[in-house]
């Protein structure tokens, strides 16, 4: 899967959990999940578990802790594929 494809799927998952009024098209690689998308950090686990299901990967707690931006998500997924 290419980086663009991963990015697009990551964005679709993140928008489910976002409490900010942000359009999918406004989400960039540098978008902060907590600050810009207003996702509660407790929900980050759900997000990462959605990544596991969608991309058929397994992520450890420590890896999930490092996720802050959309780029972090994409890199994490690419590194596990």
């Amino acid at each position, binding site marked *: 899967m290419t980086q663009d494809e991963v990015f697009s799927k990551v964005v679709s998952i993140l928008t489910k959990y976002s409490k900010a009024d942000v359009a999918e098209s406004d989400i960039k690689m540098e978008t902060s999940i*907590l600050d810009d998308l207003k996702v*509660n*950090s*407790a929900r*980050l*686990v*759900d997000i*990462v*578990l959605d990544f*596991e299901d969608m991309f058929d990967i*397994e*992520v*450890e*707690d420590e890896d*999930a*802790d*490092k*996720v*802050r931006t959309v780029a972090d998500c994409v890199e994490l997924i690419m590194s596990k594929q």
Partner: protein
Amino acid sequence: MNLNLRTKLALKIQHMIGWITFPAWGGVLIALMRFVARYRIPQLREIRRQYKEIKKSTTQPIVICSNHLTKIDSIIINWSFASVWSYMRSFKYFSWNLPERANFYRNIVLRVLCYLGSCIPVDRGGDREAVKKSLDKLAWLLKKGHTITIFPEGTRSRTGRINPEGVAYGVGRLVRAVENCKVVCVYLRSHSQDTYSGIPKRGSEFYLTMEAVEPKTEHSGLRATRDIAFQIIEKLKEMEQEYFDRLGQGSMENSYA
């Protein structure tokens, strides 16, 4: 779990200072609750007996998981579970907890009280690495035989009922990090508590039930963390249902346990 020597030493010093000063602030706190706020726990002896039994039955560390409706739930739980004298003998049973920094670290008086009262501040909903540092401290304390109180809902329930939507998975992570730790689920509620508040109303009577569980999961990784957190929340929901069933039947005075 990587705690540096400095952090471990800081926690040991905090524990020791809390213990040495406990007769002063612990006594004052309980006197304030009993005689100024006029709080009552009708089944206090029975609750303490039950908790003592649980402690006796295990050599494993104990994580107390409670529902969360007021800012002083952890203080009420500590008061319910043992006397000042018991805590003097073994201050490790006075449970550590994770108050939200924004609520409890606003002024110097609260900061000092939180420090003495075995609190580790946390920024809820904040950076996961910062939350992880707080959880690492708790895991280390558990492994050293200390007791922890944690609120799996993450925050005081806005609906007045257990809120599975907001569940924070930190509790699952903590239980996974400390092998064979015993989880004591606690349902605490004043009869006059309709929804969440800062402190309970003056003259409140508290209902408290507890149940020891050892959550197990077939999952691994983050899924295991979430599964354990859900098991604990489900248990708390059951206990809440029992509370409202008893309240509906008017059997509250006869049996709390």
